[in-house]
């Protein structure tokens, strides 16, 4: 297919698939109020799609299959492939025509409603998804579009999300169709595995292999669940009436040409692959006939106009499903024909129901009546469309129903279901006549309804135009089937069943034969049924007697309620707890038990212990460190300050240990972080409640038992950790990745401090992730503190800071604060020193950053927030952002030179006066680390420091609220 014409058609196909999504994207950019333009744009999109389809018509009618294949993930068998044959073309055209009319109708029906661009955007996306199902040449792609229709229908049905009915209807539809979608996905995956390809063309040829495969039963079951949920077959039918809470144009679209027809499309499309077996016949035709009957019965007894139409839709879907189950040439042709006919008359009927609702304010058939007198044109349209639904001759519904009846009579496979088909068909047809009569009679005839919410009149002409056109199609197809739809239907049937199909002539008159007689019987029974039951139905409940209690919706609600609410809550209350302590205890215990279990019998010390000569100094150091740790644990409840000091003691000993065992970088960083942490916790102490007296029951027996148990857990865990640490530390050192880092740090990283080279060069990507985490934490702290109501402070501001004697503030800690202020430039120099020596000697971005943060912190400590921020503009968030940008930019920079992300480059440059300076791109990366650490640390500290300002401000505001409501507090400079 390399000729230019084929190229053009392929491009048309691509455009066709993309057009609705492009239109939807355009609509999202419109302002909320642009209703006219929204309707116009979506109408134009549909028109353009129709134009594209018309451009393909010529080659489609000559039985060509247009395809576009773009490889996507070839190793997984995924490709973006589009495929149009006669069947798809007919279906897509139907979708677009109905879609266009719906848009026109909705433009008037939804006038003045809010969020219209959004509505039309959703509608277009839905159309695109539906069309995607039709056009997909790859099964995985088909499933994706299938899910997209479920999602979009959820949004469309729930468009008026203010109403509970809309929300419930949308949710039910989503849960059902999406679970069906999962089943379909599994079926498709199995089919793909069996057929060896996910390409539709290949799968369509693999029918015999799939049917012979042992998994055929499972595949069929999963596939049918997918198709039946979407096409609202019993027992999954109940989402469809619930979906009537959608705006009427949506119902008219979803339940005529799209959504529910997707399942039917799949059944017909996959008939050559999965169909033709007895299992298929019983499952598909059986469910179809059942659905057809149940739908028709319930439709007769519904009082809501849209409810009647919804169940009628279910019934007609059952009819088409039954035809797909039979699967003979005539049946498939009839199915395709009825897909079109049903879409046309049902869309027009939904629109009529919408008009009636719009003009009278109610859809309850018991309240309506005699409307023919006030809206004769609408009435006439409704009568013709209902007649088509009932199958009156000279209308399109009659033709496809005749084909259906003919198939039930003519086709045989010798099973009991086959024998009973004509009888079921007649019963359902009679019911369909009855409910069509009810629709017309109760709305348009009889005494004119009084007390309607609005006084009815003919609707705006443009709201009626789409209905008029659809009804015209009903009549045209009904009178001249062979001239109108005949060729397309035949092309579609050939596309499904094979090219060598004989031409099937659709005629209105076949002589007096069995189907015609069955039709007549159905009419007679239907009219009789309605005339005898009309009163009873109107007085009865919403639904058929006895059956209305047994509703799928209720069952579903119960299952959902139990499955997603009651049982999970019960399980949660039994298996879980809100309380933190039992959870932490469980974590510790599980870790302990797992460690114990895996080390049991395996734990042994090395044969020759690696021992470093013990030093009394070190032992003494840890005597103090251990005492500090235990003391902190002991005092943390009642003497927080003491505990904090001891915590610092343990930290300092830890820091010395790092220094002792050749980790100067760690020692420096630990010391600096220790300073910051202690300051932070000191700031936090202010908001903790006083705890001077013993807490009630603290000395009672249960509390003692609890503490003893926790102590036991803690001591056991501590001993376990000691044992593991000792066992590993005394093992001989084995060569590891660290040796490589040591050997190559200077050679390829350009630095002699290996730890720093690892951080900023070899493993720079890890460091990048880590500083990102730091930035996120900083922002979280900041955001949380802006939201939280400040806690009440446990202590008052010191006398020197309180407002009464503000003049004494100048002398407050005068000497220390002066020294601290003067420390600022010195600390900056220290920080720079740490930073620049980092690559070769202990130091680096982290240490330098924390030092810099301490420099800022000292200013805040020495004076007060207002003093600092009047003189110094600290913009921590900018620091963080710039830091991240520098770090990422350094990494990205290596792309420019053709290296992978984060490749570092190192060299020495000679600066005047200073001499050789190591210059590596890693240094720039380290600069990013530095800036980010400064930003994040300062942000957290200042955010907490500002808490006391906020608390004070809130106090003042509360006091002054009555006096001066307008007095605004100046916002801090730093945020």
């Amino acid at each position, binding site marked *: 297919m390399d000729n230019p014409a084929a190229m053009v058609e392929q491009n048309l196909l691509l455009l066709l698939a993309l057009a609705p999504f492009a239109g939807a994207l355009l609509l999202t950019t419109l302002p909320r109020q642009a209703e006219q333009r929204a309707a116009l744009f979506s109408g134009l999109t549909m028109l353009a799609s129709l134009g594209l389809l018309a451009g393909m018509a010529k080659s489609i009618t000559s039985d060509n299959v247009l395809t576009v294949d773009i490889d996507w993930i070839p190793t997984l068998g995924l490709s973006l492939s589009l495929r149009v044959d006669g069947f798809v073309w007919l279906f897509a055209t139907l979708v677009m025509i109905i879609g266009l009319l719906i848009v026109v109708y909705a433009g008037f029906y939804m006038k003045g409603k809010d969020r219209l661009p959004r509505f039309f955007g959703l509608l277009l996306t839905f159309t695109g998804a539906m069309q995607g199902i039709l056009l997909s040449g790859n099964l995985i792609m088909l499933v994706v579009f299938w899910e997209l229709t479920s999602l979009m229908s959820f949004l469309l049905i729930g468009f008026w999300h203010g109403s509970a009915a809309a929300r419930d209807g949308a949710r039910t539809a989503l849960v059902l169709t999406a679970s069906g979608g999962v089943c379909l996905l599994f079926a498709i995956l199995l089919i793909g595995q069996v057929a060896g390809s996910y390409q539709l063309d290949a799968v369509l040829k693999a029918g015999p292999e799939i049917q012979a495969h042992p998994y055929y039963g499972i595949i069929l079951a999963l596939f049918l669940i997918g198709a039946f949920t979407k096409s609202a077959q019993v027992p999954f039918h109940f989402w469809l009436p619930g979906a009537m809470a959608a705006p009427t144009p949506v119902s008219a679209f979803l339940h005529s040409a799209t959504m529910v027809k997707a399942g039917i499309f799949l059944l017909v499309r996959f008939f050559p692959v999965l169909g033709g077996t007895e299992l298929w016949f019983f499952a598909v035709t059986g469910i179809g006939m059942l659905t057809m009957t149940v739908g028709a019965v319930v439709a007769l007894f519904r009082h809501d106009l849209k409810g009647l139409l919804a169940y009628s839709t279910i019934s007609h879907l059952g009819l088409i499903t039954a035809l797909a189950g039979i699967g003979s040439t005539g049946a498939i042709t009839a199915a395709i024909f009825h897909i079109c006919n049903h879409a046309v008359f049902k869309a027009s009927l939904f629109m009529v129901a919408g008009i009636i609702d719009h003009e009278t304010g109610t859809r309850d058939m018991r309240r309506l009546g005699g409307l023919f007198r006030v809206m004769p044109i609408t009435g006439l349209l409704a009568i013709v469309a209902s007649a088509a639904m009932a199958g009156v001759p000279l209308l399109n519904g009659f033709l496809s129903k005749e084909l259906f009846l003919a198939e039930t009579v003519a086709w045989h496979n010798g099973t009991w279901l086959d024998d009973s088909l004509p009888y079921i068909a007649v019963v359902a047809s009679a019911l369909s006549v009855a409910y069509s009569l009810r629709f017309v009679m109760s709305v348009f005839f009889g005494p004119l309804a009084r007390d309607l919410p609005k006084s009815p009149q003919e609707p705006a002409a443009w709201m009626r135009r789409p209905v008029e056109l659809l009804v015209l199609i009903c009549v045209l197809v009904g009178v001249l089937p062979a001239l109108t739809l005949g060729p397309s239907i035949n092309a579609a049937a050939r596309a499904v069943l094979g090219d060598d199909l004989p031409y099937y002539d659709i005629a209105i008159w076949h002589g007096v034969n069995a189907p015609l007689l069955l039709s007549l019987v159905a009419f007679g029974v239907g009219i009789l049924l309605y005339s005898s039951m009309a009163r009873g139905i109107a007085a009865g409940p919403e639904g058929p007697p006895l059956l209305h209690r047994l509703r799928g919706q209720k069952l579903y609600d119960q299952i959902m309620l139990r499955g997603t609410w009651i049982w999970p809550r019960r399980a949660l209350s039994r298996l879980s707890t809100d309380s933190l302590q039992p959870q932490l205890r469980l974590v510790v215990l599980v870790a302990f038990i797992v460690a114990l279990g895996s080390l049991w019998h395996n734990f042994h010390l090395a044969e020759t212990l690696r021992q470093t000569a*013990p030093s009394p100094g070190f032992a003494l150091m840890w005597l103090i460190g251990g005492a500090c740790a235990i003391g902190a644990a002991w005092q943390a409840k009642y003497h927080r300050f003491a505990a904090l000091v001891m915590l610092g003691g343990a930290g300092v000993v830890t820091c010395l240990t790092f220094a002792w065992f050749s980790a100067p970088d*760690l020692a420096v960083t630990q010391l600096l972080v220790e300073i910051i942490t202690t300051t932070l916790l000191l700031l936090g102490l202010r908001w903790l409640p006083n705890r001077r007296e013993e807490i009630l029951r603290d000395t009672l027996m249960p509390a003692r038992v609890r503490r003893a148990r926790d102590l036991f857990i803690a001591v056991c865990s501590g001993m376990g950790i000691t044992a593991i640490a000792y066992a590993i530390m005394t093992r001989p050192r084995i060569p590891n990745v660290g040796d490589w880092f040591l050997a190559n740090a200077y050679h390829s990283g350009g630095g002699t401090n290996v730890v720093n080279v690892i951080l900023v060069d070899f493993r720079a990507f890890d460091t990048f992730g880590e500083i990102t985490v730091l930035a996120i934490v900083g922002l979280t702290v900041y955001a949380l503190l802006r939201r939280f109501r400040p806690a009440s402070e446990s202590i008052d501001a010191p006398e020197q800071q309180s407002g009464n004697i503000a003049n004494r503030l100048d002398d407050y800690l005068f000497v220390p604060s002066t020294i601290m202020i003067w420390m600022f430039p010195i600390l900056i120099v220290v920080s720079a020193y740490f930073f620049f020596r980092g690559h070769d000697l202990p130091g680096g971005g982290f240490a330098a950053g924390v030092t810099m943060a301490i420099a800022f912190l000292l200013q805040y400590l020495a004076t007060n927030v207002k003093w600092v921020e009047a003189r110094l503009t600290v913009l921590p968030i900018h620091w963080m952002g710039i830091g991240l940008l520098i770090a990422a930019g350094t990494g990205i920079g290596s792309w420019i030179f053709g290296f992978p992300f984060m490749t570092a480059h190192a060299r020495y440059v000679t600066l005047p006066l200073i001499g050789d300076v190591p210059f590596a791109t890693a240094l720039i990366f380290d600069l990013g680390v530095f800036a980010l650490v400064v930003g994040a640390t300062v942000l957290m500290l200042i955010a907490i420091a500002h808490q006391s300002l906020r608390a004070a401000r809130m106090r003042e505001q509360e006091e002054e609220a009555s006096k001066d409501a307008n007095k605004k507090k100046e916002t801090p400079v730093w945020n």
Partner: protein
Amino acid sequence: MELILSGAVGVLAASGIWLILRPRSFQVIVGLCLLSYAVNLFIFSMGRLTPGAPPIMPKGGFVDPTLYADPVPQALVLTAIVISFATTALFLVVLIGLRGLTGTDHVNGKEKSEA
């Protein structure tokens, strides 16, 4: 030395674990700090104890890796120190928020009736 350090890690860990099982938020925060010391020292000690040989290389020439302390645990712990500072800060803020919202410093946000 090994025995002393492993004992120290154990003491720090035990104190930390005991504290994180306590009901008051300040106790938990101190416990987390102690636990992070313990864990950092534990990870650090996985590189074995090597006094007086920091991983600072000569400029050029042959490098015998066995003469230096293992740099990998050090790099790991360096980032761990900074991150544990960040989590401590975050926890402190949650603690302050909890106190502001509920008026108590109990970790469950309410004074318990049992346990």
